[in-house]
């Protein structure tokens, strides 16, 4: 499919002599037949001998992943942690005090959060916290203070989802028989909600977490661009724009593994949380 899109990493507004172009294509393995190129790329990935990339001479696609994956993980996990820290309490509170101000206010905020894309939230946060209040830097990725805005931008979006999911899950669980039992034996409201209902109530959130974590790590392209974070998401998109076939294959390969791993972990956690899912 990539091969079918017009253009190559060597295209530029300024044309190069055909002889020069040929040498470049040959060097980066674009001259071969399609099938050979494909097999060659697959073989190199399986043997962990990553191919050179034409758009960044001097580095292999493996170098790119090595250098930037850590940043992506850090940003993704920070964002996710913030999302959970904000989302779950908000959702629990909303379900506990259903149909009160504690429900309506966080839920309407979360609706706004879902509707506002990161490329709107990001610049607004930068405007307020970096330019007006001067609490944080505008962009970059150096000390801890540089982590705040990108993590918040990424986290708020997911926090909104998580809040709504927690609320839904909690409401469902709170209407179940075992909760009524718990209340009947005289437990306080807080104990019921936090001790008994929460474990079941956050199940939807847990199953959402798998794809979400893979998503925050790979899909933070917008946040990475707005705050100049040297993560992997940008390479994912740039590779496609540059038609850099080897980098595209490597990033796709890598994310595929990431999503599989994230989902396996989630499955294990789910079994741990919900005894009903166990086989024996």
């Amino acid at each position, binding site marked *: 499919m990539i091969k079918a899109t017009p253009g190559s990493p060597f*295209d530029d507004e*300024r044309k*190069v*002599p055909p002889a020069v172009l040929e040498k470049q294509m040959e060097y980066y393995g674009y001259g071969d037949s399609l099938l050979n190129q494909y097999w060659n790329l697959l073989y190199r990935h399986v043997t962990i001998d990553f191919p*050179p990339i034409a758009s960044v*001479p001097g580095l292999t696609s493996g170098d790119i992943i090595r250098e930037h994956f850590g940043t992506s993980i850090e940003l993704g996990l920070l964002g996710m942690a913030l999302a959970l820290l904000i989302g779950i309490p908000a959702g629990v509170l909303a379900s506990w005090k259903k149909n009160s101000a504690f429900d309506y206010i966080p839920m309407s905020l979360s609706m706004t959060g879902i509707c506002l894309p990161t490329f709107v939230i990001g610049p607004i946060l930068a405007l307020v916290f970096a330019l007006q209040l001067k609490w944080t830097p*505008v962009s970059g990725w*150096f000390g801890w203070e540089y982590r705040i805005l990108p993590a918040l931008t990424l986290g708020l979006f997911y926090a909104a989802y998580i809040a709504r999911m927690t609320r839904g899950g909690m409401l469902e669980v709170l209407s179940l028989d075992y909760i009524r039992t718990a209340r009947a034996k005289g437990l306080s409201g807080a104990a019921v909600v936090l001790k008994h209902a929460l474990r079941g109530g956050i199940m939807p959130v847990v199953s959402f977490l798998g794809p979400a974590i893979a998503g925050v790590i790979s899909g933070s392209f917008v946040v990475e661009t707005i705050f100049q*974070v040297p993560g992997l998401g940008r390479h994912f998109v740039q590779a496609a724009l540059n038609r850099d076939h080897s980098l595209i294959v490597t990033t796709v390969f890598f994310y595929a593994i990431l999503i599989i791993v994230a989902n396996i972990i989630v499955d294990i956690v789910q079994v741990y949380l919900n005894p009903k899912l166990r086989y024996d």
Partner: protein
Amino acid sequence: MKLAQIFALGALAIIPCLLANTPADEAAQQQILLFGNSSEPPSLDPHINASVNGSRIINCLMEGLISYHRDNDNIPEPGVAETWEHDGSYRVWTFHFRDNARWSNGDPVTANDFVYSYNRILNPELGARYAQLLYTIKNAQAYNESKVPFSDVGIRVVDDSTLEIELEGPTPHFPNIVKHASWFPVHPPTIESAGGMVKQDSNWTRENYVGNGAFTLMEWSMNKVIIVEKNPLYWDADTVRLKEVHFFPTENANTDNQRFDAGSNHYVNTIPSDLIPTYIATGEPSLRVEPYLGTYFYRFNTRKKPLDDVSVRQALTMAINQRAIVRRITKGGQFPATGYTPPGISGYEAPELVKYNPRDARNLLAEAGFPEGKGFPKLTLIYNTSEAHRDIAIAIQQMWKSILGIDIDLRNQEWKVFLDTVQQGDYDIARAGWIGDYMYPDTFLFMWTTGNGNNETGWSNTEYDKLISNSYLEANAEKRLKMLYDAETILLEEMPIAPIYFYTRNYRLDTRVIGWNPKFLDNHPFKYVYFEN
């Protein structure tokens, strides 16, 4: 505590925040320039790099035979070569090296290093994009196309500090061409130890950058920052007053501009286009609007009917109100194009043949058989996806409709698709832009010769080709420019292109920066730049 006391304390707490120095203030104190450089350069190898933001950094790290002057791009400034002369016919040039030119590891810079470097960039196996810029050297093109061995190329070492270059033809402006980064040397032992001369993806620039420029590479963190520091071994180190330059690859123009406002940068490379008119109106002191050696234009596909007819092309061009476009749409101080080669090159003024003239435009279209646009086929104008290009295209679509009575379609294409479409010749009218590499008109005119890879309009004119190729044989500087002028006259009469405006560079620069001058090539040697404290 009383309420008033709380307020007073609160106010006290805020004061340090307001008075605190921004990073830009502190850096200025220490002579560190914080530079918003738009995007990550793919390479810092002078023979591999093809990007503008990369060449800015390379110009800090390397120095060629001749350097850029601090404020005039037409004047050659001594670099590694202290003096140079030609044989009287501008054909054979001899460069005499200064004896204190050093690589950053202490090795002397020798004539052999330059021979190695020119062998490298011209070597067919390296596949260097900018090898074309060295084609003025005798047999360079033939070597680059694997037709002759390197020994036939007109480069000769006289002794360690004397280099002789023989050219294909007389070239009075040769010192201006040599300034370009593609003519920079590289350190042979470094290249050899990193995989050899022709390794296309050699990573010597990332591991061990040995340069001969005013600065050396201190840190390169991809997508984060590139830091260069003053090179104490540089022959003119006494002139260099900046301690460091930090290049931030901020891709998002809005973010970059916000960084400047927050005091994190001294320079913004690209201002969000909608802010430029506001800055001009409010007299923003950091805003710089400077002429730039570039032209924005449209290509006509002369292989297609009715664009194969000169009258049609002239009519379309005459119906474009360039002045309205720069005043109402681009609004960045651009100049309406009167010719193709932009002003600024010393001794050359392009013929002013591009004029807005609705009446003549209508007459020409009628002559071509389409009175009031009747029977004119529906053409498509393509441009690469961007709001700025779209706005101009819409305006021109409207001008052609109201003046000529013709309808055209607009279509945007993603950059690479766009390049491919134009190259395949599968278009009617296409947006284009061209930036000059050096201060001489052939950097704009050579591309329109028959079959040139950058022509892409299918236009061909034997008289034009002859004038261009003869100009390369002419030793008299004035006669030579006259030939190019005549060639450009043919180009503008035949109009395979519709010039629209001459570019300006719009950027922001901290007002404390000294020694930074407007340059047509947007080349600001950092060795002269410093902060006044």
